């Protein structure tokens, strides 16, 4: 044995440890920097950032409740649309269609993920906004659905075109490829013999998909959903184009304009000269960071429970 060979392991261990530490340092450093720079707003504005809707640089008031609500609503809507759709597409690609077709469709979906978000914003503003405003909303209002609370756009707004709904729909298309691609890969890893055992017991295709494939892959699918959720929460450009950027009132309807944390920061940061405003915007960044961390923790905890309930397989 030569000396260099015996060196390999310890050198690698040191390098790996250093890299691991660097990630932790970067993460805690980022959190520290966010807290440090948002301190003037945290101490000066108190909880008003989280609990009021008065966003007015003229009066030095920075209440971002509307941004929190808009982020929550648009992300929720995106996930409600994207998750079932992505799962159906993934199952279709893995279980139902000819492999050649699956390859073509799969590539198309992966390409969707490579489109820059500004393109989604532009397509949204030129195609989806007019469609929702001129076709969808007028039609919706003629159906019984139109009478439900939270559907009819406020009379003072531009008929639902730029709205939380539009932002949510476009976000759904933006996160769809991520959830689909990861789910598909996870579903592909379900062992053929397990599925064949199911068919052998006389199960239908639906029963195999539903009771074997999805259950076997569930932790991976949860991971896929969280990748999509993270993207939807932090998406900036497309949302800034489509959500209407109304900073100062809570939406009464899905078709009202609103704003999101990320788009509010992106739109106002570059021209913000009031020191407290800059600090309040950084505080919003901190809040987004905390939301992501909490979601990660919930996801991990949930995964562990699922693993236990399925007998330790993940």
């Amino acid at each position, binding site marked *: 044995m030569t000396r260099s060979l015996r060196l390999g392991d310890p050198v690698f261990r040191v390098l790996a440890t250093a890299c691991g*530490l660097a990630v932790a340092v970067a993460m805690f450093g980022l959190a520290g920097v*966010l807290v440090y720079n948002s301190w003037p707003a945290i101490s000066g504005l108190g909880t008003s950032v989280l609990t009021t809707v008065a966003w007015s640089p*003229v009066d030095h008031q920075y209440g971002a409740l509307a941004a929190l609500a808009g982020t929550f609503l648009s992300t929720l809507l995106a996930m409600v649309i994207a998750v079932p759709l992505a799962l159906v597409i993934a199952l279709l690609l893995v279980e139902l269609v000819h492999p050649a077709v699956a390859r073509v469709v799969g590539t198309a979906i992966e390409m969707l993920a490579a489109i820059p978000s500004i393109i989604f914003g532009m397509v949204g503003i030129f195609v989806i*906004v007019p469609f929702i405003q001129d076709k969808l909303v007028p039609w919706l209002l003629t159906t019984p659905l139109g009478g439900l609370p939270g559907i009819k756009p406020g009379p003072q707004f531009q008929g639902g075109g730029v709205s939380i709904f539009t932002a949510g729909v476009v976000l759904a298309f933006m996160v769809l490829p991520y959830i689909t691609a990861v789910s598909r890969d996870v579903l592909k890893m379900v062992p053929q013999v397990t599925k064949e055992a199911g068919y052998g017991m006389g199960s239908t295709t639906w029963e195999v998909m539903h009771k074997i494939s999805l259950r076997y892959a569930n932790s991976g699918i949860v991971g896929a959903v969280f990748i999509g959720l993270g993207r939807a929460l932090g998406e900036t450009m497309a949302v800034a184009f489509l959500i*209407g950027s109304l900073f100062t009132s809570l939406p009464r309807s899905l078709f009202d304009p609103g704003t999101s944390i990320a788009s509010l920061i992106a739109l106002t940061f570059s021209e913000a000269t009031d020191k407290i405003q800059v600090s309040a915007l950084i505080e919003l960044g901190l809040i987004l960071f905390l939301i992501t961390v909490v979601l990660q923790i919930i996801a991990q905890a949930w995964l562990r429970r699922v693993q236990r309930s399925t007998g330790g397989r993940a």
Partner: protein
Amino acid sequence: MKKSARSWRLVLLVAAALAIAALVLAVAGCGGQTADAVAPAVPGDPSLTPVPMSADTILGAGASFPAPLYMKWGSDYNGGAGVKLNYQSIGSGGGISAIEAKTVDFGASDAPLAQAELDANGLAQFPMVVGGVVLVVNLDGVADGQLKLTPDLVAGIYTGKITTWDDPAIAKENAGVKLPSTKINVVHRSDGSGTTWIFTHYLTDAAGSIWAAGADKEIAWPVGVGGKGNEGVAASVQQLSGSIGYVEYAFAKQTGMTTAQLQNKDGQWVKPSIASFNAAAANADWKGSLPSMYMVLVNQPGAETWPITGASFILVQKDQADASRAKTTLTFFDWGYTSGADGATALDYVAIPANVYKLVEKQVWPTITVSGTPVWP
């Protein structure tokens, strides 16, 4: 054998400690930069984008509104004098931070700084270029320049007090123009911008009894939807009949949008044009704005004056370290004042009138010094 293994382990341990220390330092360094990037100090920090610091490169950062003109001037000037301009269009906030931190030769801001803020950072301020903000509408059957609006009408529309186009108050000023009964769809900028700063100052100044939402780069709008940038406002206006919005003149002209006439302070109806912005800049009381040159160009007197006009400003440190750099910078701006008007007009900007820039060179530039000695002329 055993001994050598132990000594190797020691060496490794030390190496590992060093590697970790180096990594931590590197990350901490990055962390520090992130800190700056989050605070506005860094958007303009040229240390992030290394640039040659030779005396013949002028570094500037700030407002995006005048950026195309500064870049054009930079390349036009380069042909004659061999001096390069590196202008980073990062927004006024970043430009102000950068000049306060002295990482650039000049900062640019669409809104002037008040005297107190200039003094706190030892800055001198002067106007460099003028632009106009125009109201654009999307109304079937209404041609460019046909619709007439008074300040009270504009404020009434933007506060939501006037909600339809056939409102008697609008009809009174627009005899002969067929106005539909459609709802007025109000569009404003959603991002912080100098355009909004100028427009809201106009509303505050010209229709203060109606407009109570104040004036700033972004405000709490009583009504309307937001569009990102001039293009976002234009897209919203063009998509829905009955819309009204405000955009920079250059943008409206280049995209052929339908603009409205406005009644100015002298009671005259004016259409937006380079000449009408020029009139606003020439008629304003710049002498009274000394020494800060804090000037809001809206609602200025003069029969031909366009009422929603604004200047974009340059900020430089009064106490300069390097006389030749400072002189190079001021020489470039002098060239912009005296020879840059054609370039400005070509891009639909308005150059600073001669009476104003002579005032700047006589009154403001002498306060820019190297250890007490004026740099200019």
